[in-house]
């Protein structure tokens, strides 16, 4: 959470996470440079400069594969949520690894070009009309540009300034970037290698990403939040039965207007807030209430379920909803209140007594 922005928000968990990723990157590069020449020789043989270039390229591909596996795995099973927590740092490091790969390429192939380095890169091969010999560098340039956009807009300021909706749409660039990297490898190094082991490893990674995304998307469609039921007499919508909500937890439903509402039961009273966290639109309804505050399972942002406000000195706010209990049904007014509007909690005992009598 932010009060005033600072360059990088680190805490103990994030230090451990970042150090682990750094160790992973260094370990990968070390294994690629020192172990693979004996176990998986590059054929035709390559010089040390190209070997380093491939080490960083392979590492960037490995990290992108890891990044893309974390999202769907966390949706399928919450055990993977801690990996999601600091994924932006992983993304920034991935950009630097990919940039190192590109720097090796420029330094080795275009250093002594009589033309400008970048003009030479863009103009050397322009056979865009054929698959064999296709300028695979263009896929790499596109992917690096996407990673650049993601890395330079990773600070929390961008989330608040652009809104989570635009920020997330922008960060969808990771998907075309990954496909572009697969094409960069497939039409590049894969065409050159006699030994297909590297190609099969890279292909297996890409297939894993494709399968986990399909499984997660299907899981979300089947197990996702149920839709609400509109009432004929007014515009309110039925979310669930009172008995469906456990003390300290929420029931989430998708309203007719597409918004998601989370109805919490806390100390015998119901409160409804938007399910989308103000930070990254994480699912607030999957959090548990402690001392009137629900904690977003993605990044730990907290809100008072009665007001939709983060505790002072934090300033984040989410919309609240008016609700009522009728004949044991929890009903919500789909017109959300502006973020941070206090709504009096509805005691369920009193409401149910009204039904019984």
């Amino acid at each position, binding site marked *: 959470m932010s*009060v*005033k*922005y*600072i*360059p990088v928000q680190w805490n103990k968990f994030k230090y451990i996470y970042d150090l682990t990723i750094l160790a992973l990157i260094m370990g990968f590069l070390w294994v690629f440079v020192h172990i693979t020449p004996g176990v998986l020789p590059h054929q035709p043989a390559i010089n040390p400069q190209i070997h380093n270039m491939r080490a960083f390229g392979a590492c960037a591909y490995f990290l992108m594969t890891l990044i893309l596996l974390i999202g*769907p795995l966390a949706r399928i099973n919450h055990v993977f949520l801690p990996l999601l927590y600091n994924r932006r740092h992983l993304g920034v490091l991935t950009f630097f690894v990919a940039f190192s790969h590109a720097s090796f390429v420029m330094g080795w192939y275009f250093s002594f070009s009589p033309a*400008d380095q*970048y*003009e030479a890169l*863009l*103009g050397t091969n*322009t056979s865009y009309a054929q*698959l*064999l010999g296709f300028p695979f560098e263009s896929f790499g340039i596109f992917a690096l540009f996407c990673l*650049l*956009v993601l890395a*330079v*807009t990773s*600070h929390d*300021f*961008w989330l*608040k*300034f*652009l*809104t*989570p*909706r*635009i920020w*997330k*749409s*922008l960060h*969808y660039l990771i*998907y075309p970037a*990954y*496909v572009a990297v*697969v094409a960069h490898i*497939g*039409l590049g190094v*894969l*065409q050159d290698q006699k030994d297909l082991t590297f*190609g099969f490893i890279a*292909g297996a990674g*890409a*297939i894993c990403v*494709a399968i986990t*995304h*399909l499984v*997660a*998307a299907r899981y*979300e*469609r089947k197990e996702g939040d149920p839709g609400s039921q509109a009432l004929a007499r007014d515009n309110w919508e039925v979310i669930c039965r009172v008995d469906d909500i456990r003390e300290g937890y929420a029931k989430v439903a998708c309203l007719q207007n*597409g*918004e998601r509402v989370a109805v919490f039961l806390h100390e015998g009273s119901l409160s409804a807030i938007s399910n*989308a966290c*103000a930070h990254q*639109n994480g699912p607030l309804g999957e959090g548990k209430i402690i001392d009137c505050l629900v904690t977003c399972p993605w990044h730990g942002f907290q809100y008072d379920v009665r007001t939709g406000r983060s505790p002072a000195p934090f300033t984040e706010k*989410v919309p609240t909803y008016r609700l009522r209990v009728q004949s044991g049904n929890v009903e919500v007014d789909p017109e*959300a209140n*502006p*973020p941070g509007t206090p709504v009096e909690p509805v005691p369920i005992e009193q409401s149910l007594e009204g039904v019984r009598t």
Partner: protein
Amino acid sequence: MSAAQSLVFIAQAWGLIGLAVAAVFLIIGISQIDEDARGAIAFRPLLVPGIMVIWPLVLWRWWLLATGRDVWKLRHKPPRKSHWVVAVAMAVLIVLTLLTSFSIRQTWPADIAPQLLQAPEAAG
């Protein structure tokens, strides 16, 4: 000017305009539209590369926020419906790319004897 030269020129011009936008936004604009940025200086240089890359978007958002035209409801409506489309499109493209890449590979017999090529005869 070749296509490559044009692309490099456009990229340089884009970055320079972005740099100018970054200077004005970070010195004047940011404090006006974000209360959390008031008095916070150290993080601002980190935003320069981002503004250089997406400066049209920055100008648009700056205008929306400064003129009160921002629609607060959209902040709480994530683009979740597109997950399914993205997952399917990405899976299809990955499979197609891999199939294409493996199928167009050229394999050469290793035991073929090398041939000395003749230089082409002079024209005319």
